[in-house]
């Protein structure tokens, strides 16, 4: 079966972002002060541990950004002769590499809710019995724990499947330990280097990173061992596996957290340093502009913009080939709107910093040498305000991920067909009123979100401490 790669707009921007990040990393490596600052980040155990978790999330997000449409199987009636000439038809369903990896989770749909690891449905159904009577029973699930015999306990089965997972996780962590050990073995030998790492006496906090790698690998191995046979986190109202939904939500969260800043950055940076450097009427106009935008409470501004964007998408259905493209356009538009409403803060910070830099000797000297304004802004001002940009980007990420959930609840978030933490929470919210409570959907959405945001917050803190010059004096 052939596949046709699909490049959604957000995918394109995600890959642009990766290219930018790689470029930025190379620049940072060459530049001694920023290399030193990143080492300061790496010395903090919490930062290294968070970086591991974030990179796992990032890998999932990137895999979910490689989209394709698979070829539809030809109709049986069509003969072999026609087959050669028939045009290749692709499914309208856009899938991603992550979908392909999670194939069993995506297609193993139950009828409705089921508790994690359940073998029976959550709701009772009336079933005709063999003797003609009717009974209210909870029927067996179509896929969850299907392999178990009637009356066979599930715990020994789960335990049997989990036996090897600690060793697999240990192997992953061990392999990483070897790689790091080899890189650090210069002069001391690999065994000594590895002992150093395990004792925690390396400069960078490798030991906590390895511990987190072990824990994550343990979870992944357990998931791989169990998920095809059980609904590890239960199923939701329409019978979708909650683990699948949670993993798919990661991309939406990451896209909103990163692309929003990517879209906003050029404007904020340009307007900020131009206003600060040039002053005069340019400054007045830019200040007026962001004061106006800033005076509108952001939720209302977002609400108004999203409503208008919805009207635009609804009245122009011809713009989009597939539902996925429409949902994607809406996600991107949401990022753009969030970006427009949030660039003012960074712009103001940069303006203030540039006002200070403008009066410094080296800028005066550059001006005396006859450097053009554009050159001064690019070579002398911009590199010296980059730390503010970096800190803001890091701090904004977690706020944006959290905002998405609220916006989706209000009805101005992502497309209803886009799987996101917000839409998961929104769908599960009403079910807390049931008896017994349906808790697993909410718990997984909040759990995954907490992990992502907490890791982002911890890393952002370390980045701020390392890059903010005011914090290093103390």
């Amino acid at each position, binding site marked *: 079966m052939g596949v046709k790669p699909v490049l959604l707009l957000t995918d394109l921007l995600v890959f642009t972002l990766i290219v930018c990040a790689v470029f930025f990393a190379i620049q940072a490596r060459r530049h001694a002060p920023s290399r030193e600052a990143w080492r300061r980040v790496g010395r903090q155990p919490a930062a290294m541990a968070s970086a591991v978790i974030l990179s796992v999330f990032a890998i999932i997000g990137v895999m979910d950004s490689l989209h394709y449409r698979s070829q539809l199987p030809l109709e049986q009636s069509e003969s072999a002769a026609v087959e050669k000439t028939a045009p290749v038809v692709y499914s309208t369903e856009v899938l991603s590499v992550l979908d392909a990896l999670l194939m069993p989770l995506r297609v193993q749909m139950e009828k409705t809710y089921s508790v994690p690891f359940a073998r029976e449905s959550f709701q009772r159904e009336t079933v005709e019995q063999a003797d003609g009577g009717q009974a209210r029973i909870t029927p067996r699930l179509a896929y969850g724990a299907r392999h178990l015999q009637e009356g066979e306990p599930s715990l020994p089965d789960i335990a049997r499947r989990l036996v090897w997972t600690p060793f697999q996780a240990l192997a992953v962590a061990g392999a990483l330990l070897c790689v790091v050990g080899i890189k650090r073995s210069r002069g001391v030998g690999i065994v000594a280097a590895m002992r150093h790492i395990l004792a925690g006496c390396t400069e960078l906090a490798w030991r906590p990173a390895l511990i987190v790698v072990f824990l994550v690998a343990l979870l992944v191995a357990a998931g791989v061992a169990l998920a095809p046979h059980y609904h590890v986190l239960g199923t939701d109202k329409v019978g979708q596996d909650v683990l699948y939904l949670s993993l798919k939500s990661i991309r939406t969260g990451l896209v909103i957290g990163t692309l929003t800043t990517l879209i906003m950055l050029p404007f904020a940076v340009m307007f900020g340093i131009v206003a600060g450097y040039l002053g005069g009427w340019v400054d007045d106009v830019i200040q007026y502009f962001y004061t106006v935008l800033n005076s509108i*409470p952001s939720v209302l501004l977002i609400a108004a913009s999203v409503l208008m964007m919805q009207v635009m998408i609804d009245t122009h259905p011809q713009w989009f080939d597939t539902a996925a493209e429409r949902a994607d356009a809406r996600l991107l538009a949401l990022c753009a709107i969030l970006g427009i409403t949030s660039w003012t803060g960074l712009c103001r910070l940069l303006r203030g910093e540039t006002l200070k830099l403008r009066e410094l000797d080296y800028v005066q000297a550059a001006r005396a040498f006859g450097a053009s304004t554009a050159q001064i802004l690019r070579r002398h001002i911009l590199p010296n305000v980059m730390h503010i940009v970096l800190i803001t980007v890091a701090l904004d990420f977690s706020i944006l991920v959290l905002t998405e959930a609220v916006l989706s609840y209000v009805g101005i978030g992502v497309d209803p067909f886009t799987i996101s933490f917000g839409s998961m929470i929104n769908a599960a919210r009403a079910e807390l009123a049931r008896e017994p409570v349906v808790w697993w959907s909410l718990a997984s959405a909040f759990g995954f979100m907490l992990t992502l945001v907490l890791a982002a917050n911890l890393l952002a803190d370390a980045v701020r401490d390392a890059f903010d010059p005011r914090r290093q004096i103390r």
Partner: protein
Amino acid sequence: MLAYIVRRLLYAVPILLGVNLFTFMLFFGVNSPDDIARMQLGAKYASPEAIQRWKVERGYDKPMFYNPAQEGAEKLTDTLFVDKSLRMFTFDFGQANDGHDIALEIRGRVGPSFAVALPTFALSLVAAITFAMLLVFFRATVLDFWGVTLCVIMMSISSMFYIIGGQWLVSKAWALAPVSGYAGGVDMGRFLWLPVFIGVVGGLGASARWYRTIFLEEISRDYIRTARAKGLSELAALFRHVLKNAMIPILTGVVVVIPALFTGSLVMESFFAIPGLGSYTIEAIRSQDFGVVRSMVFIGSVLYIISLILTDISYTLVDPRVRLG
């Protein structure tokens, strides 16, 4: 002082004009009234006559900025911009989709909104400052470390979790408060304590951590060393000196919180069925009532600008060195 307030109010006029123009462009420029009519009528019923009727009924059948069909000054005033947007300065917002007068509706909903927002605001401030003071008192100890860790965890939890979890635990499992609803008068407290409590807890992590950094900056100053040297207890130094001197950054930070207060109550009001401005906005967003959303954007900006001015005035109250004028 009076001159300062008047000047600040005058400064607010161009900003509000900008907000007004911006929202007008957003609501009428991005999509033409025809598009909106087509969407609200549904694609099936959107014949040209139906669209025209819809526009006439709601007064959308005018040109945007310039009306050549009219005489004299009417050329500029009998337009969509004046009729739909500038008129909001007189707090005349027109009618909602269901025919109710928006201004009247808003007047009735301001009370419940403030009944939630003001106690939340005041109590959050007290709680966060107290917690931050506690952390600063035990600074550089294990308690401080775990306190800050707790703050980071608390600010990493979604606000939706606090609301959903709190409502479920307190109202449903423990049955300590009504699940949702609102009543005026004496009964108000019974309904409002839970949303206020959740609002305070939900915001505690971020603000307490922020106040802690402010206090730590202040505590390394010379005058605190002097205060200790003259025999003041640590608590007295903290509350009498640090708190007073940290008031300016605290007040500045509070301004940042005010729009967030509006956001918070947006979701809070909808979850607890409090008939305030927040739930009104959410209902309007869900039913795509653009008139109401537009009015709320305007009112939100007015409230924000007023609170900015109030903050500046409050500077003079806490710091005699600040002179406005």
